[in-house]
């Protein structure tokens, strides 16, 4: 039983050694608008 568990564990570790997950939140995505300095300078309505 212990051997079986160890085997499963090694299998899982190997799976992740190949496909180590990368978070989707790590990428720096573009802004939805242009976000230029000029547009920020526009005065209040």
């Amino acid at each position: 039983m212990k051997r079986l568990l160890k085997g499963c564990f090694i299998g899982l570790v190997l799976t992740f050694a190949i496909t180590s997950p990368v978070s989707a939140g790590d990428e720096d995505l573009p802004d939805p608008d242009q976000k230029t300095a000029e547009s920020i300078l526009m005065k209040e309505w």
Partner: protein
Amino acid sequence: MQNIKEKLNHLNYKLFLGKPNNSDELELDLISSRISNYSNVDINHYFLLIKLRVLAIKRNLRAATRIINQIQSFHDQLSGYNKSLFGIYSAHKLLLENKHQEAKGKLTDVLSRENVTLERWLKGYLFYLYALCETKGYRISTCLLYVDKALTIFQGEYFISRCIDCLIIKGVSYMRLNDLEQAEECFAISENLLFKEPDTNRQLKVLHNRALILLKRGQNKEAVEYLLNTVRLKKEMETINNDSLTFSIYVLAKTYYKLQNIQECKHWLHEMERDPIPAGIQIELILLDYLCMAEEETEVLANTAGFIKELKQAGKWNEAAEFNYLIGQKYQSLKQYKKASAHFQSAYIAQTNLSI
């Protein structure tokens, strides 16, 4: 009346280009005072929609919400074109609030209105925002489909900075598919375009994403150099908001953790501005804090389960998979193989939940 319509059209376009100037401000004030004298409902609605656009660009989201509620009360009376504009500009505001699912709903409505003719730049912008929603929702194939549609239009109209944005999204999508060569190609073209239209904000995004490619290739030292440069330049740039800087510091700290340089990880977590913590990474930061704390007191790892559950409930399967993996690794180093195995298994299941 025609004159006012033309002026509003011109301003609407300038807001898309991100280049409104001082005379436009005066023009807006002038229109604001004159518009009430006209009874043309469509132009009044159009004016309100541009007002919504300006408020969202200025990140005055509370005032933008008020305008949205106001327009919502007479939504049925809007013309087809104004309805489409309302959908696109509400989606823009929702994306700024990280509500990409709701934003996608608005954009889907606009896409389904086939009888409405939109200007080419607006159509490109619609596709671009849709691709952005899809990339945030991790739906890679539809993201690529729409970002290509947007890119085709922006290339045809010579909107260089918009092309760069599309190429960044494409690069990120290929990176997620582990097609690192294609991803690098996209970022290399972006950098070429950045020579033509220099923009530090976009340059930093390219730099940051290239660091992630290096990490995937196992070139960890180079990746950390890229990330350190990104953080340094973001600190120097006054126009970059705090959220953007905090986000890059978080990724840098996590990278150090993955490289098992816990001291540097703690240093950068300490450097981070946490008042307020950007909404998008609140749970992730708590989990990273726990992982660092587990270096001294391993029992704290037991507290992570609830937060992993929250990530899953928020549909953040990648983040759940990643933190399950990191916690599993920690248990493995502590020789607690049963717990490690359970976390690796959870990571695997979380990853298979991704809809690609």
